């Protein structure tokens, strides 16, 4: 089935079985391998992408369901490898990345969440990332990074992407 979607701002077309998971279409057909597969059953958030602005697990979405949808993956965050977003830089500075497997999903979750709630408490951040598992960091540094970005965006308005 021919399916078109807007991926990271660009119109893309694929010819895939409609029940193919969006996760696999992104990785195999569009070469966007930033999106990871952890559990394959909605538990871990490694495959998290935005579909029409909503954070969803791409392992639970059939590609046929996103006909015409707007999709953002981790590759769409930075405009170039040299120009990371404030969130990506904060993950690096705060040590929120160890093996990095959860990072794309964490970034997409945090990116979507901060647009919805620009000034969250630490508890709200924890709740927001509760669908993203990390086996390495113990979460503290991830929460630190997200909190720092939110605080900085509050004091330096206009900086937020």
């Amino acid at each position, binding site marked *: *089935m021919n399916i078109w979607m807007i991926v990271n701002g660009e119109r893309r077309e694929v010819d895939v*079985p*409609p*029940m193919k*998971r969006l996760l696999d279409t992104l990785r195999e057909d569009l070469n966007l391998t930033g999106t990871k597969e952890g559990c*394959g*059953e*909605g*538990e871990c*958030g490694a495959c*998290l992408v935005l579909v029409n602005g*909503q*954070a*969803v*697990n791409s*392992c*639970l*979405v*059939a590609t*046929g*369901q996103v*006909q015409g949808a707007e999709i953002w993956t981790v590759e769409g965050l930075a405009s170039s490898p040299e120009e990371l977003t404030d969130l990506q830089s904060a993950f690096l500075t705060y040590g929120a990345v160890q093996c990095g497997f959860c990072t794309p999903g964490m970034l997409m*979750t945090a990116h979507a*969440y901060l647009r919805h709630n620009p000034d969250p408490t630490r508890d709200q951040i924890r*709740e*927001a990332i*509760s*669908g*993203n598992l990390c086996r390495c960091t113990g979460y503290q540094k991830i929460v630190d990074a997200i909190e720092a970005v939110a605080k900085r965006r509050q004091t330096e308005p206009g900086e937020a992407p």
Partner: protein
Amino acid sequence: MKPVVFQRASTLEEALFLLAPPQPEATVLAGGTDVMVWIRSGGFHPARVVDISPLRAECARIVEREGQIAVGALCTHAEMASSPLLREKLPLLAEAAASVGAPPIRNRGTLGGNIGGSSPAGDMLPVLLACDATVVLQSAGETRRIPYSRYCIGYRKTVRRSEELITEVVFPLPAPTALARWYKVGGRRAQACSKVNLAAVGALDRQGQVAFLRLGIGSCAATPVLMENVAGQLVGCYLSKEAIDGVIPAISRDISPIDDPRSTARYRSLVAQNLVIRFLEELVATATAT
């Protein structure tokens, strides 16, 4: 394996046409948070899938109408959790929806999908029982309205016919004096299927006797259960300490929990008792306070 036939319905009318005979039976796909997992775990191979996610324009509204709240089947858990109307008039449903999975599951999973799967652990289902909600089933030829207490008739077995779509759920507004509570006990706070969940609605009359009591409990039998033995024993009675302690045998008659990977029958019985008693005690405490 034969490729799956995938049909995307863009309107309700089209969806009902695609489900109507003589077409072969199809699997309805809404948020996919159950269906995609069933397919992946290998046991489920649908021959035909009808994607109803584009029906949101018609079937994702939450409105108040004639003293009732109608919630569209395609409403997501996130939408129910944040709906100002539900939070004001039916907070029990909003709270239960907020306790489902984690944010990305709540962004995709729908009310209709929770009912469609009718897992004994489904978190919306005890709420439907406690509120005496009615499921609206639509097919090309007719519309049926079935109270959820008669909807799920066995383990994941429902009265829905294959040509029918769940289009909305209608909740009578609880009496303003009623106390409504949602209790969910799971392995961890996020992303955990319930070990036991209880939706409770009840009120005392002016004399302090139980005026009505509806308890919907999940994960304690093959289906979600309306606790009719408990209600039968307590309605019309004062909630003395003896009356509350005396309800334990009725709780055991209402439920039939099993051991499974998530928990044991013994633990579930104990939690069910504790939750019911906690609600009854809260009912007394709230009545005494006012």
